[in-house]
Each structure stands twice: as C-alpha cells, then as structure tokens.
C-alpha cells in the first residue's frame, strides 16, 4: 500500500514536472519537484572508475534529495542525442527518456542548433554556480567555439597530456610537438598508437595534429569550408601516412579507446600514450593498473584543452531531478571527490579562491599523485576546433584507413 502511494506520488510529480519546466531561481520548488524522481543520466560508460563515481553520486542524491539516478551507459554520446532527435520527430515533447547527458563539443553544438536543450539557460542560476571558475577557465562559457549560454553545466576540465614509463624511455628524448612525435615514432617503431576514430580520444589526436600543422589555426575556429577542406587537412593526412607505418601493428589495428591504450602501456607494448585527463596516470597507478614509474609530459607549444558538461534535453521527464543532479555535481564536495586520483582524478571546474576555507581544505588535502603535472606545468591550451571539423575528420579518416581491403 505504502509502495502504491509512493509510486502514485512519483507519478504525480512526473506529470507535474512535465507541465511546467522547473525554474532554478526558485530552488526550493525545484528540490520539492525533484523528490521521488528518477533521473536517466546518459553518460559514456567505458571506464570503471567513472562508473563507480556516478554510482556514488547516485547514492548521495538518493540520501539527500530522494532522487534515483540511473546511469544509462553509452559507448557513444551521439546515441543519446539521436534518441532525443527521434523523440522530437515522433512528437514526444514531454516525458522523454533522457534526463541528463554527459556532453560537450559537437554533440552540444548539434543539440543547441536543433533546439533540443532545456532553455532558457539554467546553469548559471544553479546555487553552486557561485563557485565556478568562469574567470580563469574560458572553456566553461565557450564549448568548442560555441557559446554555452547556460544551456549546459560544467562538470570537469580536460587537457591532452602524454604518459610514458620513466623506467623504459628517457625523458630527454621525449617528443615536444607533433613533428618530433613522428621522428620519435620512426626511431621507435611499433611503440606509439592512438585509439581508432571515431573514438573521442582518437579523434582528439587528429585535431591536435591538425591544429599544430595547419597553416592558419584560425580557420579551424570557423565551420568547415568545404571548398578548402582538402587543402586544409592535407598536412594532417600526409603526417598520418608517414606515422602509420611506424605505429603499433604498423597501423593495421588500433586500440579501441583510452583504457585499451592504458593496458598496452602496462603490457610494455606502447611507450607513449595520451589522455584527456591530466591525473589519469596517477589514478591508474593508485589502482595498480600502471607501474609507479609512469610520468606525464605535455607539448610546450600547447595541447588541446576543453571542458565537459552535463545538459538537459528539452523534453526531459525529470528536469527538476536533473537540475538537482547538475547542481550536486558542481558542489565542492562532489568536485573534490572527483579530483581525487584514487576515485577518478578529473580536474575541478571550481575556483579555489571562491570556496569556503573548509571546502578549499578538501582540495588541498588531495594527493594528486607522482604522475600528475602541476597546473602551471600543463603548458598552453590549444582551443578546440569548431565541432564541424570533428565530424569531417572522422569521416575522412574512416574512408582512408578504416577499410583496409
């Protein structure tokens, strides 16, 4: 009976939520709305430590706000976007199956363009927005050149960094840019690879190389100009044509994603790998997946940097619950836990000087690990190209290298 009453209540809450979009300025009403809701969070599920963190967040949300968080594990975020597209096409403008999406870059751009996001912008009205470091982290308000306008809430920071095992390779000879990486690979054949695009880390490697080799980097900040596309990307593919024969398995097979690449470093198959999370290596050392001799390095000329976010579809069935979840994710407590290499090690989006002393102490207490570079050692940031580049690069890569015979 009690269960029945509860589910009736949940149902009422759901239908109410669908009638009027919750307003984050009236936070108490949002909290009241959110209680009892089930939030379907569509997030990439390929990494165990991230999955475990999301599980922790779900338990906290249940205990504090009575929200049930369900992690819908994706192998590609585009699938969640397409789900919303399909729902819109079918006229399902309320009660959609996706409440929250872990997102950035081209997926955000495409959802924003098609009007698939909860609007008007809500992120900057969240209570915990006060702590967010908007002054020093420009990518929080500009996602892959697209203005965010509060349509997604920041979750973590990413910067392309490289890892190597100091027990095996000399620091002095490590590459310092894409060109010297090619020379290094030719001198050490079979010891470098990148995940097979369209894996997101693999595609990012293509963008890094293109950003370094392109004559005029500002071209990349605008949408792809079809007429000049071939000429613009010619240096990248000339580079890859030279790199592939010197790569792991001579470029005839690729690791599937970052975790697969990490295993290959642990197996001594690869000497240099890279990730979008500066403390990935420390985190892997803490988990016994990599030896404690692994160290990080980056390119002095700069590497790609961006922010990853969470967004709410316009037809989310549990928008209030999704808002509470987004707000919880940028709470100092959740952010500090996320930055702990033993948990995940994903850098925070918060500004230390905006925090209360006891919250700042949480961050200061973290041991970031031997393999993590300090923020001032991470080198300059290269802006992410306009989202349209990613799509075209992936298509071109597949055409050239994805089908060998």
């Amino acid at each position, binding site marked *: 009976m009690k269960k029945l009453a509860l589910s009736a209540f949940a149902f009422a809450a759901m239908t109410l939520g669908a009638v009027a979009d919750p307003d984050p300025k009236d936070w108490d009403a949002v909290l009241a709305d959110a209680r009892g809701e089930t939030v379907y969070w569509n997030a990439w599920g390929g990494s165990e430590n991230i999955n475990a963190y999301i599980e922790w967040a779900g338990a906290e949300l249940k205990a504090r706000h009575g929200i049930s968080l369900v992690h819908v594990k994706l192998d590609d975020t585009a699938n969640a976007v397409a789900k919303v597209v399909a729902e819109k096409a079918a006229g399902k403008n309320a009660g959609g199956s996706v409440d929250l999406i872990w997102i950035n870059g081209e997926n955000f751009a495409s959802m924003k363009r098609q009007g698939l996001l909860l609007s008007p912008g809500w992120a900057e009205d969240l209570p915990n927005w006060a702590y967010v470091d908007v002054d020093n982290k420009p990518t929080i308000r500009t996602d892959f050149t697209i203005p965010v306008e509060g349509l997604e809430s920041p979750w973590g920071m990413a910067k392309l960094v490289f890892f190597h095992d100091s027990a095996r390779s000399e620091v002095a000879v490590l590459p310092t840019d894409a060109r010297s990486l090619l020379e290094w690979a030719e001198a050490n054949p079979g010891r470098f690879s990148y995940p097979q695009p369209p894996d997101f880390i693999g595609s990012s490697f293509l963008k890094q190389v293109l950003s370094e080799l392109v004559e005029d980097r500002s071209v990349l900040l605008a949408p792809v100009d079809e007429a000049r596309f071939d000429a613009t990307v010619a240096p990248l593919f000339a580079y890859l044509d030279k790199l592939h024969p010197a790569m792991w398995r001579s470029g005839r097979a*690729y*690791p599937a994603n970052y975790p697969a690449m990490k295993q290959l470093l642990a197996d001594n198959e690869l000497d240099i790998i890279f990730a979008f999370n500066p403390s990935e290596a420390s985190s892997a050392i803490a988990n016994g997946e990599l030896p404690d001799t692994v160290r990080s390095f980056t390119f002095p000329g700069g590497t790609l940097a961006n922010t990853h976010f969470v967004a709410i579809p316009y037809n989310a069935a549990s928008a209030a619950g999704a808002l509470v979840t987004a707000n919880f994710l940028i709470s100092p407590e959740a952010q500090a836990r996320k930055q702990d290499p033993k948990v995940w090690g994903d850098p925070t989006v918060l500004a230390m000087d905006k925090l209360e002393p006891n919250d700042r102490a949480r961050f200061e207490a973290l041991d970031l690990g031997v393999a993590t570079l300090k923020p001032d050692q991470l080198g300059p940031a290269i802006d992410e190209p306009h989202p349209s580049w990613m799509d075209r690069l992936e298509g071109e890569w597949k055409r050239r290298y994805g089908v060998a015979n």
Partner: protein
Amino acid sequence: MLTRFGPPAAILLLSGPILAGLAGTILPAVGYLPALGGETFSLDPLRQLAAAPGIGGSALLSLRAGLASAALSLCVVMLFVAAWAGTSAFSRIQHLISPLLSVPHAAAAFGFAFLIAPSGLVARLASPELTGWQRPPDLLIVNDPMGLSLIAGLVVKEIPFLLLVTLAALPQVPLDRTRQLAASLGYGRIAGFLYCLWPLVYRQIRLPVFAVIAFASSVVDVAVILGPSTPPTLAVRLIGWMNDPELSMRFLASAGALLQLAVTAAAILIWLALERFGAAVLRGFCMQGRRLRHDAVLRWLALGMMLASALAVFAGLAGLALWSVAGLWQFPETLPRSISLKTWVATAPRVVEPLATTLAAGLLSTAVALALTLLCLMREDETGARGRRAAALIYLPLIVPQAAFLFGLHLLFLLGGFGASLWALVFVHLVFVMPYVFLSLSDPWRAFDRRFEAIAAGLGKSRLETLWRVRLPMLARPVLTACAVGFAVSVGLYLPTVLIGAGRLTTITTEAVALASGGNRRVIGVYAFLQMLLPLAGFAVATLVPALLFRRFRAMRV
C-alpha cells in the same frame, strides 16, 4: 489432453519468430517500412549496401570464418574419433572435453585472446628465457586482418560441440565389430574407421555441422573480441548499423542482414560441394584399397590437436581468473606481482542487476522450454510417431543466421511496443533454448523402459500420477541435464539479448562483450569468470540433485 497442443506450440514457437523475423528483415531491405517513411519498394537500401566501403571484404571474411572453422574443427574431431574411439584414452578425453561445451563463446574467446596476444600468457611463460623478449613483440595476432585468430578461437569452441554430437551418434554404428573386421583385413585404425563408419556417422551429424557453419559465419561476440577491425566481419558491422541512432540506417542494416543470409547460404552450398569432394576422395582411396596401416603419426597428431584445443580453453579461462584478482602484472612477469580482490569488490555492486536479468531470463526460458519439450515428447508417446521432419525444424533457429531474423523480430517488437521487456527477452531466448533442451532430453526420454509405466497403470495410477511419480523421478538426471544445457545456452546468448534488451536489459554476457573494447582485463576477467560460473553451477545442480535424490536407490546411481 494438454499434450495435443505440445507439438503445434513448439512448431509455432520455433518457426513463427523466424519467419516473422525474416519478413521483418526482408521488407525493409527492399525499402518497405511505413513506420520509418519507407512506403514503396525500392532497391535503395541494397544500393547503399553495395556502396558501403569494404563491404565485400567484410562478407568474404564472414564466409571464410564460417567455412574454415567448420572444416578445421570437423577434421580434428573426425581424425580423433577415427583414431581413438573405443579406447580408454578416448573416454578420458571425452570427460575432459564435455564441460567445455557449457563455456559461453565470449568467455572462451576472451581467454583465448589473453592466451595468444603478444603480451599474453604464452608469451609471458616463454619470455624472456626462451624468446629473449624483454617486451612484447609488435605482432598482429589478435584482430589480424585475415581473421586467423577469429577462426582459431571458433575452432577451439566448436570442437567440443562436434565431438559431443559425434559421441551421440557413435552408439548407433557397430564400432567394435567393424574395427575388428577392418583390422583383420589389414587396414589402419583411421582408414578402417573412415571407410566403414564415418559415412554413417557423418550422416547423423550433418545438421549440427551446418549449425556450426551458420554460427561461425554470423557470430558477433567472438568476432568483436578476436576478429579484425579494419574492416570487421559483416555481422559486426550489421550490429553497428542496427544500433545506429539514425533510424534510417535500419534500412541499410536490413539489407546487410539479407546479405548475411546470402553469405551463410553460400557457405553451406560451398560446404555441400566440399562434402561431395570429400566423399569422392574417400571413395577413391577405398577403391584403390589403400590400407594406410602406418598412421601412428596421424593418430598422435589428432590426439595432440584435441588436447591442445581443450588446453587452450582451460588455460585461457585460468588466465582470466588470474587477471580478475591481479594487481600490477607487467610483461614478461609470469605471475602478477600482487593478488587482490579489489576488482571483485569494486565490480560486485554493478554485477547484481545484469546477474538478476541473466538468471531470470535463463530460468524462465528453460522452464518454458522444458514444459514444451515434455509436452512434445509425451505427444510422441501417444501417437507413436517420431517425426523426422520435426528434427529438421528443431535445428531451424540454429541454422538460420541469428542476425538475419533477429533484426526483423526486433523491429516487429519495437513497432508492437514490446521493446526491452523481460518477457520479450525470455521469448527470444526460448527460440534458442528450446532446440537444445529438446535435443538433449529426447534420446533418454525415448530410451525409457515403458514397462515401468505399464506397471504403474496396472496398479491403478492415472497418467498424470505415473508421469509425476514414476517417469519424471526416474528421468530426473537427464531432465536436469537438459535444463542445465538450456540454461547454459541462455547465459551465453549475446546477439538476441543485445537486440531485444536494447541496452536497458543487460546480462553478464552483454556486459562482458561491451567491456571487451575497453581492454580492462581485470574487469573482463570478473565478468567472463561469472559467465563461465553460471552454467557450471547449473551442471553442478544437475549432478548433485539426482545424487541426493537417489542416495538410497542403488540401481539409480551412475
């Protein structure tokens, strides 16, 4: 009374979903699917398929994998049976191999991949002492473009299956007498068996061989783990198209499924030609009177290959178990530096839900399959007819490539609004579980001594009571074994679960294959270990319960 509905229900169950599914695949493949805007027939999906880059390579790869793995595994089984059937070594190997049948394909493939990779167990055991490798060599072994490791992975898993069906056929040929006769005429063991007995045996295992070809040419999970990725096999690409959120890709996926059907059909046709060729060669040798008496090398080779294939699976599984508790384990260390239960503890909470779905789908589908099988067999007792054609029907779900009809079925479910429910999952599992339950129970059921029933009837027991108090208890062992087989099949099902579960219902198997791409060997180890443990638990129940049940009945003990 109820029994009358048994056979029609089974026929409907086995052929209905397949025919409906095939229709649901073929119509979109020629452009007809009103729900997605395809109102008229057109060849566009097929043209789009022909234009897909590397599609020919993918199709050839599937064809090659199907034929090569069936040919190799049949050869090993044929030579081994020919050389060793009737010896004590034979029965020992038979006991060694039997449990392998219950190991799900994906778990075996993982173990095999860990074994043969350049940084795998074999290289670790031999390095650096024998090979001089301080680090793994840069060799493309797993995921090789030729699909050799895929074929090898399929062969080690198909050998136990073909061996067991051959064992079931052997009692029906006069093995000992024929062996004596052939030997007295001076024929070698292998030649004697092949000339006199193999044609009789092969006739009975033909359908299972076709099932192996169909399975190997359309398999998804093993191909994801061991097959090439640039481009992958046809079935793997189909799954990609089917899961593509762009719904218009369903047309392309359906056209691809049609191609898959054609590839499997072509593989079976080529096999029919190979059969004739093989028969002609055998006859030719026979006519020339070749006695091939000095076949010791070949005999030991057959034994060696049989043992090697079993060893590969066992060693791979042991490696998996070791990875699941390994701390840091670098090449070329033979053993991990430390052992911890960390991965198990961290994974445990996430395993609960897939485990519950696996158990629910497995137990429910097995229970329904058992009920239907019993009804069919009881009906057979009543009418006395043993339909030969029915036997072919039983193999239908095993011979039609899964992808070809599951796509259509999935689409029908979706349109009917039954997507991703446990009942839909149980229904689809049932299609695959039912044949195995029927095949494993029918022989012991038919061999039952009916005089027990006559006595029971003479004592005034009703038919139901006779069934419940006499026949079922006496057949408890085969009934439970059939259930264990059915459960093992359900646990191992990948494609049906992925398609019908649509990401909302996950089982241990789908989770394990999804994790495969991540390359986290520790977590894969945990899932693959569980995947292997579940069927074993089923077989343990099937062994222990009758032992307990019959502990006071000497004649019922094994």
